[in-house]
């Protein structure tokens, strides 16, 4: 089958196409921060954008920006710059891209990048320690830039019993962070604005949760790759009208598909689960490849647990800071305890009628890798569902081989097929 024929197999969502325009606007706004007299921050990790948006502060999310730039201008030069600054190729690929961005700005030579893709230097920096590696990048860059910085410490949780204590601890720090923002901007925090924002976060999250749930039908109207592409509106855009509108449209489109039994792929034979972060630079290709084999990657931990996926109806609008703290802690919890992760995989398998697990073992993104073998074994034991491990990386193609991965996936589908005979 030719590449073109494969590409035409998967039915792309119209709404998903809108994210391009949204992201373009987002980066344009960032770029114009200075002219428009807006305070601008560089942020790392799952940062509480809501708090900055409530203060009318513009924020760049450095990992996303690095990946965004890499997708448009190629990543080789960014990685080279990071390497030159002393970052070994073993380091988290997001961190290397982010470091490359910073080193490029430091050198003053931005000739390799189209001007409309550049972002300004920050007024302050903020990080969340959920990801040590991005926090490390923050640490380095903050020291070099010598701008004010704030590091929110989300504690590691391995017991559910520790959750509430962690939430209280994070909430305390978010309040301190608000104080930090007040000092930066020279005026007090607008809690009413925050409540408004959170109402929109809640509305969008509930719409999104509904769309996710719709994939429990046969055939599923969305693939996980659609979910990956649709993250932007729930990420840097959350808390806005645009975000709510986006998910309303998505819901409408998904409902239409469900009513008319239009699946994301024409001939859905196998429903699969994806573990760990996406392999961003292969989202399209893998979606097409699996589609051509009749396989739909329907559910995954990253999209179905983060981004306010978990019980958004319980977001407490009377305690917005607490809700944000809760979400931050939930993100860490979601990749910490292996038994809990296994439970969640099991639930996803049951809810979405999953036939097989695709475990992405990511070379430089460590948090979710340890314990994958135990999780696969446990699911096989409990549900009789098999798994395959593929080697990849969220943003670094040096650690990925089309041939190796696609061969494994093909073999896995053959295995699933033979089990049905």
């Amino acid at each position, binding site marked *: 089958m030719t590449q073109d024929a494969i590409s035409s197999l998967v039915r792309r969502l119209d709404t998903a196409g809108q994210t391009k325009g949204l992201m373009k606007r987002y980066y344009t706004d960032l770029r114009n921060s200075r002219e428009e007299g807006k305070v601008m921050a560089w942020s790392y990790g799952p940062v509480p954008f809501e708090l900055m948006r409530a203060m009318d502060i513009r924020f760049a999310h450095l990992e996303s920006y690095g990946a965004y730039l890499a997708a448009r201008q190629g990543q080789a030069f960014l990685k080279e710059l990071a390497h030159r*600054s*002393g*970052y*070994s190729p*073993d*380091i*988290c690929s997001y*961190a290397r891209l982010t470091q490359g961005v910073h080193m490029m700005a430091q050198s003053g030579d931005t000739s390799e990048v189209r001007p409309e893709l550049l972002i300004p230097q920050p007024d302050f920096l903020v*990080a969340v*320690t959920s*990801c*040590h*590696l991005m*926090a*490390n*990048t*923050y*640490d*380095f860059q*903050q*020291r*070099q830039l010598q701008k004010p*910085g*704030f*590091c*929110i*410490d989300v*504690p*590691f*949780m*391995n*017991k559910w019993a*520790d959750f509430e*204590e962690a939430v209280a*601890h994070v909430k*305390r*720090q978010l309040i*301190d962070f608000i104080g930090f923002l007040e000092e930066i901007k020279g005026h007090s925090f607008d809690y009413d604005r925050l409540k408004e924002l959170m109402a929109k976060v809640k509305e969008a999250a509930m719409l999104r949760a509904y769309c996710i749930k719709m994939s429990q039908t046969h055939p599923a109207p969305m693939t996980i790759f659609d979910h990956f592409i649709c993250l932007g509106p729930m990420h840097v855009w959350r808390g806005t009208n645009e975000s709510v509108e986006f998910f309303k449209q998505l819901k409408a489109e998904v409902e239409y598909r469900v009513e008319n039994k239009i699946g994301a792929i024409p001939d859905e034979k196998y429903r699969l689960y994806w573990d760990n972060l996406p392999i961003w630079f292969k989202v399209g290709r893998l979606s097409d490849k699996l589609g051509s084999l009749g396989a739909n990657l329907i559910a995954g931990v990253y999209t179905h647990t983060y981004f306010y996926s978990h019980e958004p109806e319980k977001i407490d609008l009377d305690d917005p800071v607490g809700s944000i703290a809760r979400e931050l802690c939930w993100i860490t919890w979601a990749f*910490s*305890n*292996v*038994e809990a992760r296994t439970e969640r995989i099991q639930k996803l398998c049951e809810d979405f009628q999953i036939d097989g697990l695709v475990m992405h*073992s990511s*070379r*430089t993104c*460590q*948090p979710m*890798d*340890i*314990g*994958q*073998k*135990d999780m696969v074994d446990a699911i096989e034991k409990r549900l009789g569902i098999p798994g395959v*491990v593929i080697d990849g990386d969220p943003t670094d193609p040096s650690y990925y081989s089309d041939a190796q991965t696609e061969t494994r996936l093909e073999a896995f589908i053959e295995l699933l097929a033979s089990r049905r005979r």
Partner: protein
Amino acid sequence: MEQVLSKLRGIADQPYEYLRQWKQENGRKIIGCMPMYVPEELIHAAGMLPVVLQKTDEEIEQGPSNVQSYFCGIVRCIGEMIQEHKLDWMDGIVSPDTCLAIRGLSNIARMHKREGEYHFDLVLPLSIKNKAAEPYLRAQLAKFKATLEDHFGVKIENEALRRSIGVFNENRALLRQIYALRRDNPALISAADLSSVVLASMVMPKEEHSVLARELIGGLQKKQASAGDAVKIVLSGSLCEFPTREILDLIEEAGCTVVGDDLYTGGRYINADLATDGDPMAAIVHRHLNMVIPCPTRFDQGRDLGSYLIDLVKANRAEGVIFLIVKFCQPHDMHHPFASDKLDDAGIPSMVIETEYEMPSVGQVKTRVQAFLEMLRRNTQ
């Protein structure tokens, strides 16, 4: 003195053998602490022996594993030992919040430990100058203490804790004395031997180790030796995973002598004294939030590692720094460029040696070190 060194070397080389035997002879409990920063004094005060878990030199099996091959050696090694139940004879494991890899390893410890074995996740704040860090750490330490008491049916009184702190401080002071002797005459003891001395302290009862340390100090004070014109070097790095004797010997054989370090199995461990007045639990909190040596696993800690190393180089009259970076140790990998930039600005030469668990040809490492020393020497002529 050679006898003492030989004994300490033996314990450092085969820590688990030593510990199994010790347990048999003493019948007391052993708690394995993953590196780094577990407040061992608390465990000691509970009447048990805290040991810092070490890597062994056994081959790690390749193949589908819960700890993938791109994790650092010590995490893979400890992970494998736990999964193969080779540490079941210990009475418990404490997993501190050191880095993402150690966090992941905590899962393995919890899921594969023996029934009834103690396991505790000690959450240590990462952003240590954060206002909220202090009350949070106090609460975590209280939890740690309470779970030790509950699980083992003991009571840890403040008096006992103060005594333990005294024992540990004393041992660290002796180690610092050895370090001072080494600084003033590096030929007295090789880097490899000194590393074994510190490693042994991480494994043995501190009281016994202190006796040996005193003997060693006596011997060193009488020893005659000269380092000649060997280049004086400070070692930096190797956080959780100690550098092998082989690497340390190789570095010194290439023509230099180590006069100081900030290794975990070295400078970091020995510069961790606790205040002896006031509330001992508060002292432990204070130690963590005011680390003497800035650590790549902590953030927003105020002082940076580069500045610390500049001071260390000056204090030890060193000529250069060799960074020992454990392959796949991302915190260190990401942190050292800033430190080496600072050293560059201060005109202090530095180089990096990446150490691996399955160390390939050491000849290449020797070439690099030699080239570095040649560069140092020729540029000062």
